[in-house]
């Protein structure tokens, strides 16, 4: 047995001695958020409360909640892990995830707030035939959210095996089930109001935890970033290459193409993520939506700069063998860093590990709640109320449908959670971004800005983008034919890239255009006049 592995075992033992502390901290978070949820549930009287939190959150509150919704396990565990293992290449995630907010700010947030009511489907179906477009929007909302959920559940499983020393599948599935049950409670009782408060609490915890670890890492290097990078390069065993692009993606032309594909998916995905978009309905008007994006850009930007310290800190202070041994994709680098920075055999190290792990759990729980809310809202409002009941459902019936959908989606995500353990969670989330950028973004942009866009165009771009993106993932090395794949023992991966964005995003745009120019129906110009005037001025906004 190599020294590194013994070391990990020691760390795990140390951790298990302080298991109680982890469980206490996590239980505190759960109790506090359940309290908030019950309180918010009492305030939730009509559909506007349930779907949009009553639309009275301030720009800062929503900015914080948007950040909470966005900084998922992917950002915290995944990016830190990717940087810890691959150095500079992991940084692309941070940059792409941040720059993407400009698309949301400049093109989507305000028009959406002005013209929609509860869901992304409201805007997509505004000037189209309601039933087919709502069905498509609901479908893609649920698919994108489930991809995203998969990543969060993978993160939960990974944390559990590190912290509680549970390596059996049964133990992991139990924890994933616990997360699933909690999120069902949060969303079905608290609705958007409860979920928004949970996001805010979580954002404050995550930022505080990250500032603490960043500060301790920098302190260790006397705030000399160059020294930190130098030590990371040396300790990684890769030398200066660790600080340069290309370690993960520079191998050949194919991996370079994968890097471009990932880059495009990241920058175009955010503005198509339903769980992010519906957050803009929680503020009173478009101006507040703009301000909340600005707050989010500030908070998220600061956070991603700190993930550099987490990732390179982990690379500098922990041996690469130990990181890989703990999780092959580096997902546990951030909690391991907390343990090491406090001292592996000290109580302080165990306390830091417990704190950071509880924060990571809180992060996962909150994001999962946001995703579930987005999918169940879309199911209840787009599919149940507008397609099945043709707009005749009452608020009460819609909310009941949303609560049942929550339970159903909870069960589906628990079932899927068991599948994706060894994949890097940032990579998994990037797939959700690719699907969102392929199916949702083209349709949103055409709907808002292209006068001629028709129902057929909307359907072709949503289904075209969705089917190609999901199809390519299915036949990619993420699913089969790779030791780290979901099904490592079979190989039906004929599509070589891990991220489909470079093909599926242009395809989504192309289909929207093609569907429109080939459609026999005339665009509804009156409805477009209404949408355009509303989206730019806020006239008649809910």
């Amino acid at each position, binding site marked *: 047995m190599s020294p590194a592995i013994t070391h990990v075992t020691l760390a795990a033992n140390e951790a298990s001695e302080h298991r109680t502390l982890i469980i206490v901290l996590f239980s505190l978070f759960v109790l506090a958020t359940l309290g908030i949820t019950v309180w918010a549930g009492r305030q939730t009287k009509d559909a*506007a409360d349930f779907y949009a939190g009553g639309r009275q959150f301030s720009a800062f509150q929503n900015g914080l909640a948007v950040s909470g919704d966005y900084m998922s396990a992917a950002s915290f565990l995944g990016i830190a892990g990717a940087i810890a293992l691959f150095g500079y290449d992991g940084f692309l995630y941070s940059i792409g995830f941040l720059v993407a907010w*400009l698309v949301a700010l*400049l093109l989507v947030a*305000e028009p959406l707030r002005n013209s929609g009511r509860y869901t992304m489907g409201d805007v997509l179906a505004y000037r189209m035939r309601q039933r087919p477009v709502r069905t498509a929007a609901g479908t893609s909302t649920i698919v994108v959210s489930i991809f995203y959920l998969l990543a969060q559940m993978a993160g939960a499983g990974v944390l559990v095996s590190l912290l509680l020393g549970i390596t059996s599948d049964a133990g992991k599935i139990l924890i994933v089930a616990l997360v699933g049950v909690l999120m069902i409670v949060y969303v079905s009782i608290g609705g958007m109001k409860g979920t928004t408060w949970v996001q805010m609490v979580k954002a404050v915890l995550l930022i505080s935890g990250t500032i603490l670890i960043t500060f301790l890492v920098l302190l260790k290097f006397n705030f000399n970033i160059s020294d930190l990078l130098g030590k990371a390069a040396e300790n990684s065993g890769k030398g200066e290459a660790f600080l340069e*692009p290309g370690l993960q993606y520079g191998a050949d032309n194919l991996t370079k193409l994968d890097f471009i594909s990932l880059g495009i998916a990241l920058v175009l995905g955010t503005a198509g993520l339903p769980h992010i978009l519906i957050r803009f309905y929680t503020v009173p008007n478009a101006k507040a939506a703009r301000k909340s994006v600005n707050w989010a850009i500030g908070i998220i930007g600061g956070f991603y700069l700190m993930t550099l310290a987490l990732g390179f800190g982990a690379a500098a202070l922990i041996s690469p063998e130990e990181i890989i041994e703990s999780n092959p994709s580096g997902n546990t680098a951030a909690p391991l860093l907390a343990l090491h920075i406090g001292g592996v055999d000290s109580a302080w190290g165990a306390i830091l590990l417990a704190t950071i792990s509880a924060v990571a759990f809180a992060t996962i729980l909150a994001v999962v709640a946001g995703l579930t809310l987005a999918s169940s809202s879309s199911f209840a409002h787009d599919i149940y109320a507008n397609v099945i009941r043709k707009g005749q459902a009452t608020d009460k019936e819609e909310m009941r449908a949303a609560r049942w959908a929550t339970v159903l989606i909870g069960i589906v995500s628990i079932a899927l959670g068991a599948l994706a353990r060894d994949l890097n969670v940032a990579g998994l989330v990037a797939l959700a971004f690719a699907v969102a950028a392929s199916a949702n973004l083209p349709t949103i942009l055409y709907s808002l800005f292209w006068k001629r866009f028709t129902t057929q165009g909307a359907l072709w771009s949503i289904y075209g983008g969705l089917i190609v993106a999901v199809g390519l993932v299915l036949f990619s090395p993420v699913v089969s034919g790779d030791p780290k794949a979901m099904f490592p023992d079979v190989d039906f991966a004929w599509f070589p890239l891990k991220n489909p964005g470079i093909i599926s995003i242009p395809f989504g745009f192309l289909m929207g255009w093609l569907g429109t120019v080939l459609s026999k129906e005339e665009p509804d110009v009156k409805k477009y006049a209404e949408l*355009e005037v509303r989206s730019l001025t806020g*006239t008649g*906004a809910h």
Partner: protein
Amino acid sequence: MAAEAPPPSTEQAKLPTPEEFTEVQESAEFGDLRRSYRSFAFPLTIGFIVWYLLYVLLSNYAGGFMGAKVVGHINVAFVFGVLQFLSTFLIAWWYSRHAAAKLDPKAEAIKTRMEGGA
């Protein structure tokens, strides 16, 4: 926050007729608002996406340049990455300033008139 204050009655705001919307959409005033918005937001979007793609492509195909040391262990790639952060903050601020100065007053005027039942 929210819960205490009674929600203002935006939900009940009077919605203008389709004819009014079409009329406003074709008006010079709205055309002006649309132009101020699109001529700012569209080129800027293309600009930051090109700037971002430049970063992605340089990372891929200009390893030597990106690996060049600037100070200590800090290389061009890092400076480039941090510049992406700075440009994002800057563009967000710039757009918000433009929107507050040039878009909000025009949008507000049209909205008030339309909802006022003109």
